[in-house]
């Protein structure tokens, strides 16, 4: 999988590159509009992370170029502006997703994986993890032939942790992803504990070879046994 990060802020670029490389992606970077234009023109990528406020041009123009060239690279717009116009404009131009800064690394992985799945398998692929099969199309989870019935939140937690497997996912990242952006002003994210408890129980009852570990009260980590 080849990923291009277009981002003018060096430290931001470095963070994203480091975290994505650990997923064994091939990561290339461009720090300005011209370099990005050159790379887009010359190569194909599975996913492009596009910061739209570049010092020498508007990232949305790059998106236009890409579409004019008939390429179907997956594009996730990354923006500090979080403006509705940019979001709508970007999605209208054919971007796959819009990720406002600041975001959690876990969220970045979840979005990138979702785009890669949709791009490469038309969204109809299932994800294998341990002895479980997750089908994002029907939002179902099976252990070979036996379905493990999860509620919406339990399913979202499982999918999110799967996208970030063997990584530590903070409670805040998980809560914001599963419960929505606006749960974020809750004064503690401990409320996710009861859903987590239920999910763990359902997984072990279903004989899943997965373990969700609580890490020092900071977050959770999914590991395959």
């Amino acid at each position: 999988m080849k990923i291009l990060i277009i981002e003018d802020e060096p430290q931001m670029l470095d963070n994203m590159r480091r975290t994505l490389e650990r997923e064994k992606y091939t990561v290339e970077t461009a720090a300005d509009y011209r370099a990005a234009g050159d790379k887009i023109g010359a190569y194909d990528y599975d996913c492009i992370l596009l910061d739209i406020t570049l010092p020498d041009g508007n990232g949305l123009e790059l998106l236009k170029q890409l579409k004019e060239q008939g390429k179907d690279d997956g594009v996730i717009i990354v923006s500090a502006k979080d403006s509705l116009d940019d979001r709508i404009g970007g999605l209208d131009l054919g971007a796959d997703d819009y990720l406002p800064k600041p975001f959690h690394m876990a969220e970045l992985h979840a979005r990138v994986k979702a785009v890669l799945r949709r791009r490469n398998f038309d969204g109809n692929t299932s994800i294998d993890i341990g002895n479980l099969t997750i089908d994002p199309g029907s939002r179902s989870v099976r252990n070979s032939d036996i379905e493990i019935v999860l509620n919406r939140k339990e399913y979202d937690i499982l999918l999110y942790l799967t996208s970030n497997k063997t990584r530590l996912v903070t409670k805040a990242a998980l809560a914001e992803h599963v419960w929505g952006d606006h749960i974020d002003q809750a004064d503690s994210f401990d409320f996710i504990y009861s859903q987590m408890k239920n999910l763990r129980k359902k997984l072990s009852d279903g004989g899943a070879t997965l373990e969700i570990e609580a890490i020092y009260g900071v977050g959770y980590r999914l590991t395959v046994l």
Partner: protein
Amino acid sequence: MKLLNHTTKYFALMLIVLITVWAVIFYFAMLDEVYDSLDDGLENQKELIIQAAETNPSLLNDTDFGVNNYTITKTTLEKHGAFSDTYRDTLMYMQNEDEYESVRILESVFAHGGEYYKIMLITSMVEEDDQIENLFTYLIGLYLVLLVSILLLNNLVLRKVWRPFYTLIDTLKGFRIERDAPIMAESTKIDEFELLNQSVETLTKKSKESYVAQKEFIENASHELQTPLAIGINKLELLLEKSSLTADQSQEVGAVLENLGRLTRMNRSLLLLSKIDNQQFVGIEGIDFNRILAHIAESFEDFAEHRNIRLKIVETGTLKFPMNKDLASILIINLIKNAIVHGEQGKEIEMEITNLEITVRNYGSEGGLDASKIFKRFNKYAPGKQSTGLGLAISKAIADKYGLKLGYRFSDRHMFTLRFPTE
């Protein structure tokens, strides 16, 4: 009191004094003139009678007024010596009026055939009290006429003259800095008003500029903070993934992350507020509030449960209203979140939806909160709670944007009511 009436009041007071003084002077001047004229008439008559008596001595026997307006009586030189023409006022019975009226009387002495006679002539006089009464009546009349003229003048002429002023006042009254362009008053020929207009124009222009600058500052500052926040958060997240960290170190990093998270939320809320102010939310659709309320309550269920609070929805009507979908959600979310964060543990939060209102009721601290401050930014009632102090301010800003009334009351519970306009 209106400016017009103020000037009229002073005019009226001034006129009373002026007209009273004038009336006194006028009265005495008139009286003087009247006496002068009467006395001249009496003297002339005296001359005529004395002449007539030369040829007709029978006149000398008219000792009674009778039909005449004079009497002639014999007198002596001794008495005459001390006598000169005297005029005085006296009272005399008048048959026609059946009362005593004042008359002007002239007493004089003349010689006829070696004898001395005293002659008294009378003439009816304008009665003093009648005179004063008449004068008074006419003066009142004059006063009223003057007053009415001034009022008319004020209301017709001055109103016209003051029109630019009132136009400006009206414009200023309706001026909202977050909504309106700086005031451009129509020009006027009156220097003072032109000066006022110019001052107001400059003032509103400057205020608007600094308001816009301030808004832009908040928005830009919030934007500029996003990237460093993102870098900080992501670096710490990468650090946390390192297995070499001990439990203590991880928790420290977690605590820093938590605070960066708070900073992020506060920053987002500020950005959201300025976006609402800047009218950056367009796109209106018919929002089904029953559905939104149920949906949001569901997503807050875990959070409420964690705080041992039950969420209860009471639907007594259906509420649909056209607005931006995101803002509608944020509006309701903040109200519910507020109730959960500040609600008393072990109790219930009731959300009632009618055809016109959404009310969120929660138990909590005893006594009502200051309704005038509760919707202000960074107004925190619960120290220690990690709220941004912006949630209710955001709800209020959204409600205001769409003309909804968001109010707070306390009876046995804290109640936030969102009232929708009736078409």
